């Protein structure tokens, strides 16, 4: 199992605990995530500046993966959505021909349309399979309750993502987390956007979106929120205090990456899961796990 590891821009700078826990989890699962130094920006931020430039950036990454003969696994939902959208656009032969002409000019081989793109969680669900994860659980997290936040681009637009999950009743991450023994709860605003994409252009709305979910999950008394995207984590963890301030509240809700949760159940150490980088302390969680 060898895959091109698409790290993106945010994870290797802003989400080191996500990167660390993903690498260590992949290792014990026997999944080889190959670093590709040639990968560049996925095109997400560029899409608001120049649509064609954004497509070229995405296409370039697909072409590089194809040349290496590997499918892509990534951890940022935004990157996965943009690359998957590009993959869909490039099914159009005319457009692909045009894009390939431009790729040639920047020294990249043509893209023929063969690369598959999957978020690491989707890969675990669809390809690795949950029963194989279950076999490796050594510390069941039976005492823990989590509120899962999927992130909009995790499964939307559904056509680009091959309809692998249902945006109105998402289930893949719930199923994965359930395998650890923990209980994912259902909550009213589960499908709410984290709002981070508009932090720089509509700050107030962005904070209000984040605060709504933080408040809901705080009231539910979950042990932590579980996320699958560096942007969502920035919105809910890094900005938690600021979002709370706007809402006149003080939140204290730990935010974990799904990779940290699975790793915890598989007996990986705090260091291997990057727990010392969690800003909202997870001691409460640790106490619950020690009998």
């Amino acid at each position, binding site marked *: 199992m060898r895959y091109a590891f698409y790290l993106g821009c945010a994870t290797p700078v802003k989400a080191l605990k996500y990167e660390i826990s993903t690498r260590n989890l992949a290792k014990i699962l026997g999944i080889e995530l190959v670093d590709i130094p040639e990968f560049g920006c996925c095109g997400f931020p560029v899409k608001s500046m120049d649509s064609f430039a954004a497509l070229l950036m995405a296409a370039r990454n697909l072409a590089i993966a194809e040349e290496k003969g590997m499918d892509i696994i990534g951890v940022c939902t935004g990157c996965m959505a943009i690359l998957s959208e590009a993959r869909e656009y490039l099914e159009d032969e005319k457009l692909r021909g045009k894009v390939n002409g431009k790729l040639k000019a920047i020294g990249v081989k043509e893209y023929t349309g063969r690369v598959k793109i999957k978020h690491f969680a989707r890969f675990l669900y669809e390809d690795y399979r949950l029963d194989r994860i279950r076999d490796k659980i050594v510390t069941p997290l039976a005492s823990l309750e989590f509120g899962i936040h999927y992130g909009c681009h995790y499964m939307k637009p559904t056509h680009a993502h091959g309809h692998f999950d249902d945006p109105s009743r998402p289930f893949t991450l719930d199923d994965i987390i359930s395998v650890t023994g923990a209980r994912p709860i259902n909550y009213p605003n589960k499908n709410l956007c984290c709002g981070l994409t508009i932090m720089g252009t509509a700050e107030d709305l962005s904070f209000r*979106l984040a605060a709504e979910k933080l408040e809901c999950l705080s009231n539910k008394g979950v042990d932590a929120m579980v996320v699958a995207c560096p942007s969502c984590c920035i919105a809910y963890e890094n900005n938690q205090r600021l979002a709370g301030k706007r809402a006149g509240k003080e939140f204290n809700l730990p935010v974990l990456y799904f990779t940290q949760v699975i790793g915890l159940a598989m007996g990986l150490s705090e260091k291997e899961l990057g727990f010392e980088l969690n800003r909202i302390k997870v001691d409460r969680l640790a106490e619950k796990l020690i009998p």
Partner: protein
Amino acid sequence: MYKFFDREKLKYCYQCGRCSSGCDINRLDISFQPHRLLHLISMGAIDKVLKSDTIWKCTTCFTCSERCPQGIKVTEILWTARAMAVKSNYIPELLITQKDILLRTGRLIPMDNKKREKSGLTAIQEEPSVVDRIFEIAEKEK
């Protein structure tokens, strides 16, 4: 400029408002109404849309696109409208900064290899030239 939506398809929008009624930004800020924006675009008043700061409130969550009974790619249209606004020189401050960082570093967020090494992760080199050339090539596409 390359557009990822077909103006023709917009005529299938029957202004039911389902896109707006499912939009959380519309719920928080009533002045933001995706179906109104589409109406303006299909009426040829696109400049009005590009000039307003409204399009920059959309989170690109895709909820509207998933809800539209006519299969209209609402999010994609609003997203493209942003790029059109930028081409027409209606550029939010944030994008000027972001483009500058992209051109300088090849990434949206500059690399911090000291921090990476402290956490036991290997360094990653910035590769700015690719972004520069891609913008240059795309610039020529009308």
